[in-house]
């Protein structure tokens, strides 16, 4: 269960997406997410799907891993689709039987929402699959740096994020180890009712907290020893630089958004008011 977490999972590679500047990737992802909700008819929806497929192909991330990122949201997709199908009114009636009223608007909204959510998750998982957590936090720090004017401790926040991401796999290992140690002493984690199961977690959570605090203290000491002071004026070993391919992909993205807008205007909305 715990091994299914895909956040911060990086897939090593050297595709165009991997080489793009992380800041640009974040900007592009945000633009894409906004444009997802601009789609109003099947033509623009098709363009969005095509764009998602192309992104996945370029990234060279195995399809298996892409599906893994969709799996956790499958329930949400099904649930919202069902709600939309049964509750949205308007358009031509499709089914009209006793208390069940399904309209064309309901069906279309359900389809649109489902595809939008899936594309949103797939494209944003492309961001984390092709960008190392360190690059990601560096980029977020750079993008948020204007907030420094308002005394927001941007670099400290970014460091906290980097550390948090860095320690996810360490903690997963630690949980595994402690669980095994307690199982070896006969801890029963799989049986019993809800309360018993919660209680059975105490022997795992207490040592986990203790060792996390110990780790945090050791890490802070190690950072002190290397004269880390944080704050402004810190330079980076790897400087981020925008180059031609970043602007080229931005240009493609602008074309894509323009395409969606044009298709929307030309073919009109599919939902009937």
């Amino acid at each position, binding site marked *: 269960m715990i091994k299914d977490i895909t956040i911060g999972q990086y897939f090593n590679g050297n595709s165009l997406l991997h080489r793009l500047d992380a800041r640009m990737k974040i900007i592009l992802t945000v633009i894409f997410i906004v444009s997802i909700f601009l789609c109003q008819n099947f033509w623009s929806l098709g363009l969005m799907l095509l764009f998602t497929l192309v992104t996945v192909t370029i990234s060279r991330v195995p399809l298996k891993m892409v599906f893994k990122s969709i799996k956790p949201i499958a329930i949400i997709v099904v649930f919202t689709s069902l709600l939309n199908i049964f509750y949205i009114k308007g358009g031509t009636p499709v089914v009209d039987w006793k208390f069940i009223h399904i309209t064309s608007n309901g069906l279309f909204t359900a389809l649109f929402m489902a595809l939008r959510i899936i594309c949103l998750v797939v494209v944003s998982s492309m961001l984390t699959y092709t960008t190392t957590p360190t690059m990601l936090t560096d980029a977020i720090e750079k993008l948020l740096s204007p907030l420094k004017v308002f005394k927001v401790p941007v670099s400290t926040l970014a460091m906290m994020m980097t550390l948090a991401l860095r320690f996810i796999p360490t903690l997963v290992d630690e949980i595994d*180890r402690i669980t095994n140690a307690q199982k*070896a002493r006969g801890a029963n984690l799989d049986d019993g009712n809800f309360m018993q199961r919660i209680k059975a977690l105490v022997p795992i959570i207490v040592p986990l907290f203790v060792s996390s605090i110990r780790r945090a203290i050791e890490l802070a000491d190690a950072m002190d020893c290397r004269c880390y002071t944080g704050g402004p004026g810190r330079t980076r070993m790897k400087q981020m630089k925008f180059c031609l391919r970043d602007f080229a992909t931005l240009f493609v993205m602008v074309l894509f958004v323009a395409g969606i807008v044009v298709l929307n205007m030309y073919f009109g909305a599919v939902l009937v008011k």
Partner: protein
Amino acid sequence: MPILSANGVTHLYNKGTPSQSKAIYDINVDIEEGELVGIIGHTGSGKSTLVQHFNGLLKPENGQIIVDGKDIWKDKKSTREARFKVGLCFQYPEYQLFEETVYKDISFGPKNMGLKEEEIHKRVLLAAEYVGLKKELLEKSPFDLSGGEKRRAAIAGVIAMQPKVLILDEPTAGLDPKGRDRILEMIKSYRERTGSTVLLVSHSMEDVAKIATKVLVMNKGQVEMYGTVDEVYSHSVELRNIGLNVPQVSKVFEILKSNGMNLGSAYTVEKAAEIILSKGGASV
């Protein structure tokens, strides 16, 4: 009849993914009752994976684990029984302590066995005595103990289940020489007093030579050698080939031998001193 045996045990890591690999492969070992077996091998040789099969924490892909004449994967009950018959104490066991007092922590295992309060009390006191924990420490919080005391408290937590086979994974890792000797001494006397079987996973050839009766050498997920300390340690060339070093005194004795001074063989400093003292007068 051996107390513990592995028949053709194979275990795969990352099964079903591209990185699938054999952690251990076709292991056949019989461990006789009352032995103290040292399991040595290089990092990643599969020692820890193997011992986690012995108490049913890992399920083998192929093969059987027989504890006390019973296949531990026959049904759910047998697996749970194996947890208590084979006590496994992990590396750095002090990180598993969680209760408010040392006493409560040691009693965690016996409690899970469903024993009566009096029996638990008896076992906790006995286990604490085996590992040399003073009685007044039992009411303290485990987090207030020193490093060495914490480790002994954690080992007591496994001993208190009174397993037929006690497995200790690197019990001396990260301890100073004094703490290390103390743990080794404790293991030796525990075995002598209870007559139970002990498996000691280690990569220190010195530690194993000091207390073990038999040695199991693992290499690349397979059993490389299995025999008495003398049998195994005399193959110093083969041991070196798989990245294991014989104890330093043995090396000194080998060099002396190649220079024409044959003193026989010794694997511990104490034994070496004994040999040299007995020959000292004659050869000088």
